[in-house]
């Protein structure tokens, strides 16, 4: 069944061949040829070999001349019966699409869907199935089981998203957090037990009614990290009273509205500059090594509904007061909305915790390890102060630095505080 028009293409000889050069046409256009007849010679990197006609007919066109190189699959000649019209031959040549031979990997990203597993229809067992001991335990990772016990989570209610539907630690934590946030189905109420109802957990005798609330994962993280910090870091504390009058005056001179920098923004800027001056304080401790940072990445302690969170304002020392005001506002807002990204809460070279807005006069804070110092800021309040020999009223605040003595010696901490205080007392440099 000869096709009316047959393509003669650069042949593929062996797996590595991608192109060939025509060294000799053994026939001329118009010659009658038979299928299998050797009609031209082609040279590759490895060999010179004859090309056989793929079909019988008349060699109507030579597309690639002697000496020319063509990729495998490209058209080099056309074979057709003598009665096929010239226009048809021309159209065939125009419309011919060469087979693509490529050994390059695909540019496309790998498919994102998880590997599908084939349907496994179990083959019949000729002998009767034995009475097996089940392996129910297998549906839960052992760590998830432990976490579930700790959080009081009923594993039968947790949907597994791990391998083959197994319950992972993340699943248990997500479930516990959902229960905590009230978004879990009603059936989940077993984790919030009342002392007056039956509960798996022991009920303390002689107490009034209480709610048993599982710690969510953030709470547990806070608990673990702060306990570790408090127990393992040799904290010491330095306190200084600073007159915020100049800062407040400077601030009052700025245009009002929601974008006006807060007192805390000035404090952040002052702290950043002081940190630049005292690299020992702008640091983290890692094993036996101290990491001193080039810039002041200051963590801001924010009380969100789900607990304390410390988003980080990067390179505060390089930013203007207006930039700091803008960024800190956005950061605090996303902290309260729970939309912080992971990179916004990791790292940090120093922390500022401000409880002034609650009317707290003074307090000290626990170091946010692996950082080595934290500044606790009390409320700005009018206080009686001695100026020269007179008693006066100034708008004062108390700043308390908690520092890790392994890294920051007392004198270093004191120098840092003095630098900070000086900048606040004369804020024009901010």
């Amino acid at each position, binding site marked *: 069944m000869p096709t009316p028009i047959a393509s003669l293409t650069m*042949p593929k000889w*062996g797996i590595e061949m991608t192109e060939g050069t025509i060294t000799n046409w053994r026939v001329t256009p118009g010659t009658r040829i038979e299928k299998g007849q050797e009609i031209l010679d082609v040279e590759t990197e490895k060999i010179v070999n004859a090309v056989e006609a793929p079909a019988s007919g008349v060699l109507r066109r030579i597309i690639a001349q002697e000496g020319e190189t063509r990729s495998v699959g490209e058209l080099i000649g056309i074979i057709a019966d003598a009665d096929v019209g010239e226009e048809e031959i021309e159209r065939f040549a125009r419309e011919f699409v060469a087979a693509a031979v490529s050994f390059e990997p695909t540019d496309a990203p790998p498919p994102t869907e998880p*590997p599908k597993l084939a349907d496994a229809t179990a083959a019949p067992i000729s002998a009767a199935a034995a009475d097996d001991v089940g392996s129910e335990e297998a549906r839960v990772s052992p760590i998830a089981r432990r976490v579930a016990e700790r959080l009081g989570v009923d594993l039968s209610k947790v949907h597994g998203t791990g391998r083959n539907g197994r319950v992972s630690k993340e699943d248990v934590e997500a479930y516990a957090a959902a229960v905590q946030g009230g978004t879990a189905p009603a059936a989940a109420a077993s984790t919030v037990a009342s002392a007056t109802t039956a509960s798996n957990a022991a009920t303390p005798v002689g107490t009034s009614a209480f709610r048993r609330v599982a710690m969510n994962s953030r709470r547990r993280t806070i608990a673990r990290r702060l306990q570790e910090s408090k127990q393992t870091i040799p904290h010491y504390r330095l306190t200084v009273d600073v007159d915020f009058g100049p800062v407040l005056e400077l601030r009052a001179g700025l245009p009002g509205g929601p974008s006006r920098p807060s007192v805390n923004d000035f404090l952040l800027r002052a702290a950043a500059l002081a940190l630049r001056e005292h690299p020992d304080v702008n640091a983290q401790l890692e094993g036996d090594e101290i990491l001193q940072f080039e810039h002041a990445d200051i963590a801001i302690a924010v009380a969100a509904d789900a607990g304390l969170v410390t988003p980080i304002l990067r390179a505060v020392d390089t930013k203007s007061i207006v930039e700091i005001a803008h960024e800190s506002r956005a950061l605090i807002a996303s902290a309260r909305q729970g939309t912080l990204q992971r990179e916004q809460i990791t790292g940090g070279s120093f922390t500022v915790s401000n409880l002034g807005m609650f009317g707290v006069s003074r307090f000290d804070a626990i170091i946010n390890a692996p950082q080595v110092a934290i500044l606790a800021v009390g409320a700005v309040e009018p206080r009686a102060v001695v100026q020269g020999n007179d008693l006066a009223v100034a708008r004062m605040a108390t700043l308390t630095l908690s520092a890790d003595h392994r890294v920051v010696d007392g004198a270093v901490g004191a120098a840092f505080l003095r630098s900070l205080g000086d900048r606040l007392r004369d804020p024009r440099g901010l």
Partner: protein
Amino acid sequence: MSDSARLDGTRLLRAYRQMKLIREFEERLHVEIATGEIPGFTHLYAGQEAVAVGVCEQLGDADYIVSTHRGHGHCIAKGCDVGGMMKEIYGRRDGLCHGKGGSMHIADIDKGMLGANAIVGGGPPLAVGAAIACKLRGGGHVSVAFGGDGSANQGTVFEAMNMAVVLQVPAIFVFENNGYSEHTGCDYAVGSKDLTARARGFGLVAECVDGADFHAVYDAMGRAVERARAGGGPSAIEARITRFYGHFEGDPQKYRARDEVARHRETMDCLKRFRERMRAGGELAEAQLDAVDAEVLALIERIVADAKAAPPPVEADLYTDVYIHY
């Protein structure tokens, strides 16, 4: 009376069609591979058809074969769907192996075809295993290991032959001696020069036949199958044959005399021999055979067009069927 003498016209016509189908499948691949549209490399079976068909005409779906890198003929002879095979060779999604195997790994377990095998000597141990299953189940079925003269030098084949004899399983080793282990002559690579004697040395009942003679292969296979079914243990058949093409497509075949293939196409073409025999014996009319030729060519035309038009696998297929469950 030999087995082949008992074949009626229908069976003879079927055997001819199988051989012709293999021939045209391979001849067409020879043309299509040169266009570059078929990926990878391919080993053509053209010239050896009477061996695959002579052996497999003695088998049913419950009998097993394991094949080689030059496996298209075995697949067709054992009843694999040629359309699915062509698509597989083109690397198409609905190829017989969903485009994951290609020319050298075509398998169809339901047809008892346990796979072509790209490792020379890889198959015979598997055939012994299938023969163990046949023996244990007691249904009188057999397992066949196809291999070339090259495989006969592999240690795995020695192990398989010995184990088949030790376990007395219904395994049949068919050595297709086409004269070349890839690009090296069999006379050089087989130290003893005699594969049949070698098989006998392992304790197998072995015979040597003209591989271009369908009837001779069919009858030798009939004796081996009968022996196996009767619990007489394994056998070996050496079929002397030639291949019409190189080791793989694109092989310049510099190891062969320039006229060797042309000469063999004249004297060792099983299809010509079969037609001559039919003409002499009068079992089948010329017109019947011509009709088969036309039908086969039309079928090949159709399956090639279908394969070219068929969609390739999708990337997600990369991940399937590594395990049944993981």
